[in-house]
């Protein structure tokens, strides 16, 4: 659906996107992650034909954005970052305006508008003035607009930014529903969002794609070693010494908890070494109340990937 190869975008003062290549297949939901200023919005603007690139090619649905921009645009539904709308218009009026700009035939327009209004939960507010709607509703109007010409690809730039948790959940549910019929590229810096919605993750940092994989695989890449947490009743120094003496294990952190128990964070070659820790505790006669492998969150993965690659470059 999307084929980006070797795309570079320079702004006068800086290199915003540096030789980026990636592909998105039909029907995929891909999360586009990156810190602020990493080049997410610039990449999306190039994808939708708003910004020209300095070099490289972008193909959307088999059309080249540089030479067949109109073909591409008619197949892409784009929700820009700040969800721009005309505050003086009514919802129906706005959707009608956008539908006719996007070439929806006048005979099909009303039905199509009603369909997207229903999809996005806007049926009740059709007569309301956009400027008087809440942020959540405005976001939905933006989404309805991006859907109104039945695009193959949806490009959503931070669709939940500035919403309250309840609205975020609603918009997310909506996006998940849309995924049944559209390919979606979704940018965000909210990690739970990606975890909740996306099948695949693209991470961009300082204009470069630094990772592109499923969430599980990204975790696996980072889990060269396992972190094990253990809580025992023992003397801090003895325990640290004994644990470190085991082969392939190293105590990263140790602290005495308020209730007298000792908490250790251990770096181990594999998670299966928990058994050895258990055996050690039994042998030493340490009461044990917790023994677990630390789960990496996507946040850890993200921070680690962007930091590592950032440091290398």
């Amino acid at each position, binding site marked *: 659906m999307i084929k980006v190869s070797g795309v570079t975008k320079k*702004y006068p003062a800086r290199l915003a996107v540096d030789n980026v290549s990636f592909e998105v297949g039909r029907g995929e939901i891909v999360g586009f992650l990156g810190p602020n200023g990493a080049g997410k919005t610039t990449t999306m*603007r190039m994808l939708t034909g708003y910004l020209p690139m300095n070099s490289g090619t972008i193909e959307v649905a088999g059309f080249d954005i540089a030479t067949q921009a109109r073909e591409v645009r008619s197949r892409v539904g*784009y929700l820009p970052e700040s969800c*721009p709308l005309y*505050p*003086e218009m009514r919802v129906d009026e706005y959707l009608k305006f956008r539908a006719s*700009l996007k*070439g929806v035939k006048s005979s099909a327009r009303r039905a199509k508008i009603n369909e997207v209004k229903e999809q996005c939960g806007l049926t009740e507010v059709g007569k309301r003035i956009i400027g008087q709607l809440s942020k959540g509703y405005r976001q939905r109007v933006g989404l309805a*607009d991006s859907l109104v010409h039945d695009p193959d690809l949806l490009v959503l730039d931070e669709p939940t930014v500035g919403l309250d948790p309840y609205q975020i959940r609603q918009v997310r549910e909506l996006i998940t529903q849309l995924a049944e019929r559209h390919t979606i590229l979704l940018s965000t810096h909210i990690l739970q969002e990606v975890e909740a919605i996306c099948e695949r993750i693209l991470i961009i940092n300082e204009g470069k794609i630094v990772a592109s994989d499923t969430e599980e695989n990204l975790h696996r890449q980072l889990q060269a070693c396992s972190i094990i947490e253990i809580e025992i009743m023992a003397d801090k120094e003895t325990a640290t010494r004994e644990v470190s003496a085991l082969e392939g294990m190293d105590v990263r952190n140790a602290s005495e908890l308020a209730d007298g128990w000792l908490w250790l964070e251990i770096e181990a070659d594999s998670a299966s070494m928990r058994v050895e820790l258990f055996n050690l505790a039994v042998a030493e006669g340490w009461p044990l109340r917790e023994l677990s492998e630390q789960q990496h969150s996507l946040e850890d993965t993200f921070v680690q990937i962007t930091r590592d690659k950032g440091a290398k470059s």
Partner: protein
Amino acid sequence: MSVFVCLLKKELRACFYSPIAYVVMFFFWALMGVNFIWLLSQLAAGESLTLSTQLMFSGPILTFAMPFVVPLITMRLFAEERKLGTLEALLTTSVRVPELVLSKFVGAVVFYCALLLPTIIYVYILKQLCPATINDFPDGGSLWSGAAGMLFVGALYVAVGVFMSSLTSNQIIAAIGGFALIFGSLVGTAFMAYMAQSPGLRIMGQYYSSFAHMMDFSRGVLDSRIIVMYLTHTAWFIFATVKIVESKRA
């Protein structure tokens, strides 16, 4: 074509929905009223009837009100789209930039023409006041050419205003820039045309002075050189706006 019509409808709606349009209308119509009273008092004081169309179209009040009024109409056009981010939303649909610029230009010209509508009432009043013995007053020819002049000059001013609006996301800057350019050239060329010592400057001023041109138009003089100048200058500003909108995106 249908995209253009749709954009134009939206422009007109936005224009007539905005409170600033009515503020502008109120003040401009008030000034037109003052201008008409001044015209009547001149005629009452014995001024020649043949001068009435000149007084109506090229009196100093209207001439100097235009550089204030037109930028107030046009300041919104692109600056607001940039500020709201809707320019991005527009240009990622199948809309072509020239269509967009033309729709805004035509929309603003239509509103400008609406501002001039009270002229019809004034012409009617003049006709009623005129003694039955005088035929064809005010003179139809000079009325039409005066109106055409207002349209040519207005279209150029609007094109300048649209151009200024495309340069910035700040409406105030767009308005002040438009005002500076229009008012500056109006006053500058009028000075050149009437006050300059050097004959060369004088001739150049007369070629460029909207003030001088409106005098001619409202006397019934339709000079093709002047008309070509207005049309080409207007087209140039529209073209420049298209180029600005195409290139200035980030």
